[in-house]
């Protein structure tokens, strides 16, 4: 009989595991990546995806075209504008919790990343920037020759 783990039926269980994993390194000072500080917009998460870094930022309501990413030496700068939706219709606001405005964040990256090969993708209000390790930084198998 095959053993099937309960989590396979329960995607929310894996959600809990993921939330715990994300919480574990929440603003972990052990990984000081030279960030422009907590509270800055947008909040970012940084992952190791095996190939390099995956940097994610939540930018709901931001037009993909208004996101500007610049890599210079080891600094990645993300700028953009979260513009308020056009208000053609009149009306009174009962709730106004969402914030708008310009944003800018810089991330100091470690050595050994190939910024030339960085890619960025914007989906459902989440920006993902992938930066692969540079070939020199990747582990290299060294063949052992026999005499």
């Amino acid at each position, binding site marked *: 009989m095959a053993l099937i783990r309960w989590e396979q039926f329960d995607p929310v269980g894996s959600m809990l595991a993921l939330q715990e994993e994300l919480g574990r390194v929440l603003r972990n000072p052990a990984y000081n990546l030279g960030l422009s500080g907590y*509270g800055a917009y947008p909040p*970012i998460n940084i992952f190791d995806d095996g190939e390099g870094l995956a940097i994610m930022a939540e*930018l709901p309501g931001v037009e993909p075209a208004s996101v500007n990413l610049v890599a210079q030496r080891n600094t990645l700068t993300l700028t953009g504008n979260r513009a308020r939706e056009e208000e053609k*219709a009149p009306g009174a606001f009962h709730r106004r*919790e*969402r914030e708008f*405005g310009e*944003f800018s964040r810089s991330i100091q990256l470690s050595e050994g990343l190939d910024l030339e090969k960085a890619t960025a993708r914007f989906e*459902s209000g989440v920006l993902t920037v992938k930066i692969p390790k540079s070939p020199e930084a990747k582990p290299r198998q060294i063949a052992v020759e026999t005499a």
Partner: protein
Amino acid sequence: MTPEQEIATREKQEVQGAEKTRPGRYFVPAVDIRENENELKLWADMPGVSEKDAEVSLNDGVLTIAGKVSPAAYDKLSPLYTEYNIGNYFRQFELNEDIDEARIKARMRNGVLEVELPKREHARPRRIEVSAG
């Protein structure tokens, strides 16, 4: 020089109150709600939620908005540094207005749920002409 930061990050708020049977944290999406004589319009920030994973329902005058994020997107990623957690979104509002349910429209755009809730004809204020006698 960096431009002045006009926008700040607000920490995500967890859903309080009724306990969910399923494990995991739920977050309260930030919303804007605008009302005019014809409709209520709501915007809710739910980054990471696609069209198929957003839900809007109106039951007994209670509007429920919900959104699911997929943990599968994080399968091969191990976190090094995080500033925000992820989770499903959930929020409810009691509506005092009489909404025409058949004409409710909702769409997801760049991680923002937009809901248009048109008022029923008779719920709209009607101007009655006063004629001179």
